[in-house]
């Protein structure tokens, strides 16, 4: 036990403690990877919403805007998707000679569906971060408790107990707690940040939806 490097300490740990450490390491790696992906997606959504709102309120004719969007091949998401679905439904319902209020209502419904899809893809995987943040300290604690139990049991067979005999065992067991905290803290911070950002995006989508519905309502009243 003279060689006190962290590696030997980890490799000397008992199997359950090692398993716990492995689990925590995996949780940390996955949560960081997820943070990376999520951050990218949220940034992209924010940028998209900004540019689309700019275009929408630039005074452009709505059917022109719809035509421009329809030409593009790539998958649409965010405000673009909401607008496209709403306007398509509006045009379809209008062609079907439905009642004005019915036209607006069906467009509104289509947009709601589209919006909830967007929200889902924004919130996707966030629960994993929450789980890592709340559970991994307990998992780490479990590893520590197990390690300390083992080192005390080893102590039971000896006549003259010294601190030097338990200390390495406890030290190695505490690594599990440290790892648990290390995995949990970034996950919790990221989760809080992402949820607040996603909430802001949701508010933005809802505002747009309401405004757009108002515009459609006005347009429905104008002669065909």
């Amino acid at each position, binding site marked *: 036990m003279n060689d006190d*490097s*962290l590696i030997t300490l980890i490799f000397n740990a008992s199997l359950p403690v090692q398993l716990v450490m492995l689990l925590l390491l995996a949780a940390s790696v996955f949560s960081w*990877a997820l943070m*990376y*992906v999520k951050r990218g997606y949220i940034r992209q959504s924010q940028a998209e919403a900004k540019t689309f709102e700019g275009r929408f309120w630039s005074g452009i004719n*709505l059917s022109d805007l719809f035509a421009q969007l329809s030409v593009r091949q790539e998958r649409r998401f965010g405000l673009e998707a909401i607008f496209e679905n709403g306007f398509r439904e509006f045009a379809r319902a209008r062609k079907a000679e439905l009642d004005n209020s019915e036209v607006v209502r069906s467009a509104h419904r289509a947009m709601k569906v589209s919006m909830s899809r967007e929200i889902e893809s924004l919130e996707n995987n966030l629960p994993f971060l929450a789980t890592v943040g709340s559970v991994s300290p307990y998992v780490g604690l479990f590893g520590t408790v197990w390690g300390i139990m083992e080192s005390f049991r080893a102590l039971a067979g000896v006549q003259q107990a010294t601190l030097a005999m338990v200390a390495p065992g406890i030290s190695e067991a505490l690594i599990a707690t440290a790892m648990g905290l290390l995995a949990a803290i970034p996950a919790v911070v990221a989760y809080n940040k992402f949820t607040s950002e996603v909430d802001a995006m949701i508010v933005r989508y809802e505002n747009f939806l309401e*405004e757009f519905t108002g515009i459609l309502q006005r347009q429905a009243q*104008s002669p065909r």
Partner: protein
Amino acid sequence: MLGELLKHPRALLVSLVLHVVVIGLIMVNFHFAERPMQIKAGQIEKTVQAEVVDQKQLEAMENKKQEEANKIKEAARKKKEQEAKKRADLKKKEAEEKRKAEEKKKAELKREKQAEEKRKKEAERKAAEKRKADAKRKAEEKRKADEKLKAEEKRKAEEKRVAEEKRKAEEARKAEEARIAEEKRKAEEARLAEEERKRKETEARLQAEAEQKRKEAELKARLKAEEDQRRLKSLRDAYILAIRQKVERNWRKPAGSGKMPVCEVRVLQGPGGIILDVTFGACGGSTALYRASIEKAVYNAEPLPKPGDDALFERELKFLFNPAEQ
């Protein structure tokens, strides 16, 4: 969750690299950090072994030790006396033998001295003869050497003279060369200084020209910006005027004859000039009927006219409605 991550292998890679780096840093730090107060196993076993001892036992032991010491001392003294006697006998015998040997040695020495003297005389004689012959030979040799030395000195003097002449000539040549080089150097310096001065002049001129150009460009840009702004402003004025006129055209004078002041109308419009909302700003002392007529006029004016430039589209428009201008 895993599926989503496998779609982004880059994210997984970034995360893995991050972890490897962090773990590596922690390892290094752990190695260097001094370990606080580790107790080594050997230190514990090295405790002092203490025993309880009775006082009486201690005294008896002490007495016994004393007696033993006395005995040893006595024996040593006896042994010493015997040895001293033996040594004295031995000394006497040795002195006798020494004296006899001395006498014998003296007789030997006397004989040797006589033989030595005889040998010495013979040697002196031989040496005198040899010295004479040597002196003669040496004189001859010295003469020859002198002659040689003189010749050598003469030769050396000649050589020195020649070398001196040569050296002087060389020095003169060198001085001349140095003078020429110095002149050249000075000329070069002057030339360089001149060039530097010219270069600086051109630089300054170029800089001044660049500055001038920059200023001109700036002025032009500013003028253009002002021009654009003016154009936009006039376009905007035209835009607002068009809206106002369209609204005023669509206005029907309400029944009754209340006050009809100039009103500030705020219109919230959507894409394509659709009206979303109409509110009123300063509209002192107007009746609700009058305001309703204006609102109706605005809605009748839908869609509102388009601006001359797309950049001028405004979501919220403000204009003054003046019934007298109708």
